[in-house]
């Protein structure tokens, strides 16, 4: 990038020259990076010994892709971006939001309410399973988790890397209490939320003095501790085997099974597992809406304003007489409560829980959704969950790729690889998230840029 712009002669030539130079540089770097990891593959042979073989072709493909990619970025991508930036500056800023944007949440809600019907109508009861379960419910669980974590990270500004612990507490509360004591889903749903909130307070209390990254690592540690206890306390939790055959949720006592008084029989419909999934879809949708409603209401209440104030400036908060201890604890507890709700829903949906579902990677994914969506913005988080989770789920469906890359190609393997890469790319191009951060709800006289927008890394 050190090439000097020589504007008087031929800028086009210069650009191509620069592109070639950088392309070759990128190719050399890529050759170094992938030489051992792509160029050589290690495998076990039939004697179970580790052997290696070279993969020069794959290495060459990677190097060429890097070089050509860099060349195109320099010659085409960067000038285009620069031109667009200049365009945006010249354009008069659009004042106000368009009517469409305002109506978007309502449209989305209508679509979501109709979604299972559309799926059934288009794909039939059996075919709709995939769309309702893998896409609908899966994405909505992450929306709910994202909105729950948003209270802690987005509103109160406390970086929590162990959110999945509360999800686990909720899931195991339901799994254990329903299998051991036979309590119903509707009793356990609030109870799991309360238990998770309780754990949120227990874990929150000792870490209140910590800030920023220290808080992050301690919450990460707590998340791991809960998972390790679930693995090792096998008398109660059955360890890594997990708890299976967890009772399903019921609708006013009506069971979703093929029995005489099951849902399908009562409604006079053909028995199908699709009804339970559709029921679960509306259930998680209702839970999501509850989360959103509570968040929106809380933001207008003194406690919500205290959270936002805490996020912007903790010292100023203390100077103004806000009790930072209770403020932080309520954020932790309420965030944890929604995690607990989502957890008990998860247990009811899967019918099976094991510690494998609550690894750190889940926390990282939820945090990524919150940050990529734009911290504090509910709509942004929903979009981020849709793109990141829906995108990776979509990858499972890419059967046609097998035609291109051969029958051994399994797209699932690349799911997390692409997820990681997407996290990096989205952050690079939109560091403020898809929608951008929410500004504080309350203002004195006029909207000003808040200090949070200027916060540098490591000193927030």
């Amino acid at each position, binding site marked *: 990038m050190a090439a000097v712009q020589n504007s008087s002669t031929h800028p086009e030539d210069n650009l191509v020259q620069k592109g070639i130079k950088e392309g070759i540089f990128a190719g050399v770097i890529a050759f170094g990076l992938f030489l051992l990891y792509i160029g050589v593959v290690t495998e076990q042979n039939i004697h179970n010994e580790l052997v290696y073989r070279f993969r020069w072709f794959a290495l060459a493909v990677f190097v060429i892709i890097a070089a050509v990619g860099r060349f195109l970025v320099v010659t085409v991508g960067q000038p285009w971006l620069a031109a667009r930036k200049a365009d945006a500056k010249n354009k008069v800023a659009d004042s106000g939001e368009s009517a469409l944007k305002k109506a978007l949440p309502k449209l989305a809600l209508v679509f979501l309410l109709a979604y299972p019907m559309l799926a059934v109508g288009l794909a039939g009861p059996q075919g709709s399973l995939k769309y309702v379960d893998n896409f609908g419910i899966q994405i909505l669980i992450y929306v709910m988790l994202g909105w729950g974590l948003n209270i802690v990270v987005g509103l109160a500004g406390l970086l929590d890397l162990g959110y999945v612990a509360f999800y686990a507490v909720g899931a195991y509360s339901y799994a254990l209490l329903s299998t051991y004591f036979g309590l119903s889903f509707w009793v356990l749903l609030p109870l799991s939320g309360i238990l998770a909130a309780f754990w949120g307070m227990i874990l929150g209390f000792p870490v209140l003095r910590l800030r920023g990254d220290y808080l992050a690592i301690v919450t990460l*540690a707590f998340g791991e501790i809960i998972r390790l206890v679930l693995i090792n306390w096998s008398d109660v939790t059955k360890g890594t085997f997990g708890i299976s055959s967890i009772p399903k949720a019921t609708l006013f006592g009506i069971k979703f099974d093929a029995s005489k008084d099951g849902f399908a029989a009562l409604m006079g419909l053909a028995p199908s597992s699709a009804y339970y999934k559709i029921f679960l879809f509306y259930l998680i949708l209702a839970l999501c809406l509850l989360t959103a409603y509570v968040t929106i209401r809380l933001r207008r209440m003194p406690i919500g304003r205290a959270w936002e104030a805490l996020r912007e400036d903790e010292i100023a908060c203390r100077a103004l007489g806000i009790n930072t201890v209770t403020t932080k604890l309520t954020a932790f507890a309420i965030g944890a409560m929604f995690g607990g709700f989502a957890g008990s829903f998860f247990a009811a949906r899967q019918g099976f829980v094991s510690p494998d579902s609550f690894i750190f990677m889940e926390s*990282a994914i939820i945090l990524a959704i919150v940050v990529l969506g734009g911290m504090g913005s509910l709509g942004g988080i929903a979009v981020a969950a849709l793109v990141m989770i829906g995108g990776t789920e979509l990858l499972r469906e890419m059967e046609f790729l097998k035609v291109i890359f051969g029958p051994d190609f399994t797209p699932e393997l690349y799911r997390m690889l692409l997820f990681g890469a997407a996290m990096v790319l989205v*952050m690079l191009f939109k560091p403020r998230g898809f929608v951008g951060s929410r500004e504080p709800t309350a203002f004195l006289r006029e909207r000003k840029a808040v200090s949070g927008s200027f916060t540098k890394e490591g000193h927030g």
Partner: protein
Amino acid sequence: MEYFVQQLINGLTLGSIYGLVAIGYTMVYGIIGMVNFAHGDIFMLGAFAALIVFLILSPIIGIAGVAVIVLLLAMLVVAMFMTSLWNWTIERVAYRPLRGSFRLAPLITAIGMSIFLSNFIQVAQGPRNKPIPGLVNDVYTIAGLSVSLKQIIIMIVTATLLAVFWYIVNHTPLGRAQRATEQDRKMAALLGIDVDRTISITFIMGAALAAVAGAMYLIYYGVASYSDGFVPGVKAFTAAVLGGIGSLPGAVLGGLLIGLIESLWSAYFTIAYKDVATFAILAFVLIFKPSGLLGRPEVEKV
């Protein structure tokens, strides 16, 4: 008593590995104030580079006599070079454009990079564990204690590297530039320090140490896996925080402490809860001394 000392030796070996990785965390945190979450995976890349070099070289030169020394050196050097290149590229691509952006942005790219790297190795090299035959198997018995040659090598290499790095940071122009950048990046830039270059070199140094740790982890346990980055990475980060993040001696001390806690806990209590013990002690230290053991207390600026 002998059992206790034996566990101490095992703990110090493990602690040396954690300490080396912790230095990478602490240096990067000190200089740009971000948690380089991908550092654990850089450690794993180091182990894989060493593994591949071992597979390629060992049939050619054998694993007896002088050849072992050549082999070990080649594994260390290639692993250091590979991870340095990776960490340099990662810093360039994923962290540098976000410098000066808000605090969570580089953390998220770091987590993304961590996911990317471990899955990249899973896809490129396969998900199975990769065992290698034992490389140096001599075990000495001194006064009833058994010390393996591996442990001696690990401790000697760690001590040597620490001495070299201590010298670089405290007594060379490069180290001075690093310390200046750490204290005040803007002022350092005004005084003619190439801040970008200094930060790049910090990443390279951290990666090289992580590679050595990875290679020695491979030699010690004889197995590498794509998922090996996370747990040692988190423990090394715990070590860095325990010792006081930003402090080099603190990172080493924290690493040794974590290693000792882990091996003593597994020896005297239960191996199942050793990680719980590590994390619980971290939480306790932070609650009562939030700046870590050797860290400077953070001054709040209004």
